[in-house]
Structures are given as C-alpha cells and as structure tokens.
C-alpha cells in the first residue's frame, strides 16, 4: 500500500551501513526516510513503531514521554531484581528495549481466524498472518492489556508490567496469543476452506 513502486528500496538509516551500501544502491531508487528516523542511540525501529501505536490525537511528545517512563520503570525493576538476585546475575536483562523486543516476539501470533462463507454457513477458518500483521497484533494486544487498568494506575506503570510479563513468556497477552492458537488448532478441520 505504498505510493512508491515495488522496486523502490527502504532507506538505510545507520550511517556506517550507508557507506557500505552506497556503491551497491547508487542506481536504485530509494524511498525517502521518515521524519522521525535518526541515526542515534535513542532510535529503534520497533520502539518507534510502538510509540506510534501509543499515540493518541497526534500528541507525539506525550507518546514518547510515556514510553520513556515505561522504560524507566522497567529498568528500575530489573536493576532491583539484579541486586536481589543471589547467583545467576547474567540472565537478568536490564536493557528495556531488548525486553520490549522480547515481549513482542513472545506475543506474536502465527495464525488468526477469519470468517469464510461456504454453502450458506460461516466457518471460522485459521489463516496464517503476514509478518507485519503479526507484529501489529502483538503490539496492539500489549497496549490493550496496558490500557485496561484502574484509573489511579498510570499507563507507564501498567505497560511496564505487561512488557516484563510478556518478555518472560507469562501474562495475559501471551495467554491471549495461546488462546488464539488453540482456537485455530481446534478449527483446523476448516483449514481447506481457505482455497476451496
């Protein structure tokens, strides 16, 4: 769904990579870079995408602040755990972005159910998801879980907990993914309706 034809390639943001690929891409048309993308330590593709999903009413400064606060809380809890841990300190990740990526990877669904009409009856047919869609769903679910909270709890607090839970393969979001997978599994008999 891009305005650019398919032979346009994605821009490279990393400066050192740019130099490497400069020769290779010299005659290939390149899409323009996004306004928000920078080659700094604060930029992460997934992080940026997640900020965009947090965004409400175009208030991107607030969205960024919320994610920053979330990361702060994650870091604080993880460092606290690190200090409390007796032996195995290496297994505790204190980097918040890594944890966010882990959480999203753990909650990505592979299949989803789509209603397909065959012989006047609607069947819930399991259909594989594209990579992009699965990332979207994972992030959407994490955010939905985070927004379902008491009014007194702030979003960063709840979001931090959801991310920490999901990063170690627990919590409501992972359960939601597993439930969906289970439904798909039980409806596997209808799978052939996809193409027949």
């Amino acid at each position, binding site marked *: 769904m891009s305005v650019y034809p398919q032979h346009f390639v994605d821009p490279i943001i990393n400066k050192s990579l740019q130099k490497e690929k400069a020769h290779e891409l010299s005659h290939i048309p390149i899409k323009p870079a996004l306004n928000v993308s920078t080659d700094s*330590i604060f930029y992460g593709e997934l992080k940026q995408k997640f900020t965009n999903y947090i965004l409400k009413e175009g208030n991107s400064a607030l969205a960024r602040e919320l994610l920053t606060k979330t*990361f702060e809380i994650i870091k604080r809890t993880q*460092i606290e755990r690190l200090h409390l841990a007796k032996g195995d300190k290496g297994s505790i990740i204190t980097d918040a972005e890594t944890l966010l*990526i882990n959480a999203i990877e753990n909650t990505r669904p592979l299949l989803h159910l789509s209603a397909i009409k065959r012989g006047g009856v609607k069947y819930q047919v399991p259909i594989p998801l594209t990579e992009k869609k699965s990332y979207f769903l994972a992030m959407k679910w994490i955010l939905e879980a985070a927004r379902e909270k008491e009014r007194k709890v702030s979003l960063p607090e709840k979001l931090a907990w959801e991310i920490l839970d999901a990063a170690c393969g627990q919590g409501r979001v992972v359960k939601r993914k597993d439930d969906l997978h289970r439904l798909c599994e039980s409806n596997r008999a209808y799978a052939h309706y996809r193409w027949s």
Partner: protein
Amino acid sequence: MFRNQLGNLSRVSSQLQRISRVELMSTEVQPAESANSVINEFRTAVTSPGEHSALQLAKFYKIPAEEKKQIFAGGGLPKQYEQQIKTFTEACLMVRQPALELLNYIKNADLSKPAVRYVIYGDNGVGKTLTMAHVLHYGSLNDFLLVHVPWAPNWTKRPKESTNSSTQEGFIDLPFDAAAWLVHFKTQNAKLLQKLQLKTSKEYVWSKRESTPAGATLVELIEHGIARIKYATETTAALISELKLLSTGGQCKVLVAIDGFNAFFHPITRIFSDNKQLVTPDRITLTQPFLDITKYDWTNGICVLSVDKIAMTEGYMDSYMPRYLLGKTGFEHLDPFVPVHVTNYTDKEFLSCINYYMDRHWITKTQPGFEEQLKFMSNHNPYTLMQIVRGL
C-alpha cells in the same frame, strides 16, 4: 521488517553476559558492602568530605547509609536523586569543583570573624543542591550545628497550613511547616545537641501556663515547639536567636544552609491573607529568623545559600545571576558575599558520570560513539543527562 534489530539483540545479550561474567570474577561488584573495596577510575574510597582534594575531582564518593539518613531524612536531596539512590542501592555524590572550592573556603575560614555568606548560583540542573549536600555532609562530620532549609520555596509556594499570627499583627504563621523544620533540625543535630548540652539564655513565655525557663536545654525548647504546633513558629525564632548567641559565645559552630534562598525576596507568594490579598514573603513570620541568621552580626558561623531560578515564579526566571534573583533588597541584605558558580559537567566529570551509570547498569547500550551523542544532546548538563538516559 524488524529482523535486523533482532540480530543486534543476540549481540547485546551476549555482551551483557560478558560484562556480568567479568564482574563475577572481579572483587569490584559489590560496592555496597565496604567502603574501601572499590576504587575504579570514577570512584574514590575517601568518604569524608573534609579530606577531599583536587585528587578526587570528578570521582564519586559514597555517603554511608546512616549518615545519609541522619542528614537527608527530612529532605535536602532532589526527589529524583533519591529515587536514583534507591535504584543504585547506594548514595553517591560526585566530588566537583564548586563543592571543593566551598570546602576550601570553609576550612580556611577564620570563625572568630563575622559569618561569611557563600551564595551558590548556576543554571537549572547543574547541581546546586547536590553541592550544598556535599557541604552539609562536611558540616555534620565536623561538628557544625546544621541550620538547613531543604527548599525554602516550599514555604511560600505550597505551605501546609497558614494562619494569622497571634503575636504580630498582619503577619502569617506557618505552624506545620515550622514544626516540620524543627523535626528536621532535631534529627540532623541529635548527636551534637546531646553532646554539647546547649542551654537557653532567657525565659520564653508562650502563654499563661506554658513557658520555657532560662537554662533549659535546646532539645527541650525544640520538643516543646514540636509538641505545641501553635507555637512552632515562635520556637523557631527563639531557637535561631539562641543559636546565634551561643555560637557568638563560642559554644558551638553553626552551618546555615538554605536552598532557594531567593524565595524570601520574591515579590509575591501563593498565600492569601484574610482579605484575599497575596502575602509578600516578609509578612511570613517563619522567614524572619532565617533572614536574621543570614546577617553578619554573629560569629562562629558559616552561611551557604543557594539562589535558584525555579524558586521564583513565572515572569521572574530570566536569569540565574544572584543580583537578578535576589533583587535589590536581597542583594543588599547579603552584600558582601562570596559567589560560587556551579557549572555544567566538564568532559572529565561527564565521562566519569557515564562510567558510573554503566557500572550501575543504568546505561546498557554502548554503541561506539554513544558518549559523544549523549554529550551533544545533554549539553553536559547533569540533570538533562539524567533525564535523557532514563529511557535508554
């Protein structure tokens, strides 16, 4: 779509493991246990501020937990710094040039001369309060009685309760704040007051039935103020005038430290009087003793005051210079004083701070050149650095 990032991920985690493995082997992992176990290039084992010199410049020293609790229990460290201390499981301060300069002045000061006023000034977030904290630590270890106001604008901006003064017509009392300050004073100086056994010079009559006789200890005076909150403000005034007398008499040394001192000279406060008029700070009874003790008509004392932009309200925050912030009256009140300029981090301090953050796992992303980026984005400002690093 995000595959290239995931490639990085495994590299990051392996790097993390490598760091932790190194730490397991070294003896430098647990700085919390003993003071002399850790001497990195950004740490110093010298925990007494009195012994700090240019050798320890830009290094972190640890404040022992019980001393921290004694000095800063009632405030004195910024809230976010307290949070950081909790996360890092140790209270560390960086030895910086302004603090060293101040300590040097204080150590070489002739206490028999009238009290010298030092005014700490600087832009937002450069570490004025922490410089003051360093000096306070020195004071408490070197038998100074601390007269410390953690943040003066709290009284003018958000007092807990304001009532009309019963003794002075047209003045406003802040009984709860005064009592809170008395508690703060008591906890800070508990040991020293026990040791010195200071006595009051005259009788204080609070009401028909209540009075504090001449020759009562200062602790009794303070405890009366805390118990009878109604008289807390007057007790504060009495206590401070007593301290001035006692220190002039050579019985004790007093270190006055007031953060946000310019709030006392701000044109307005946020307190309303009975006829819905905004009160000026000089109409608040609690400010009077502190203005009194910052005069130079007493000896055996040192005043460390800080002027701060955020102590003012909007419209008065154009410059951080003492003359602007104090105004004409404030400047004349303090004149002559020794200005101490707190500046942003130097390159050395900046790197030391980054190293410290990395040691405490606060920064985990260490791509090549990340220091340069942080330096550029924070403009060497300590507070901005703290803010931008938290989401990293």
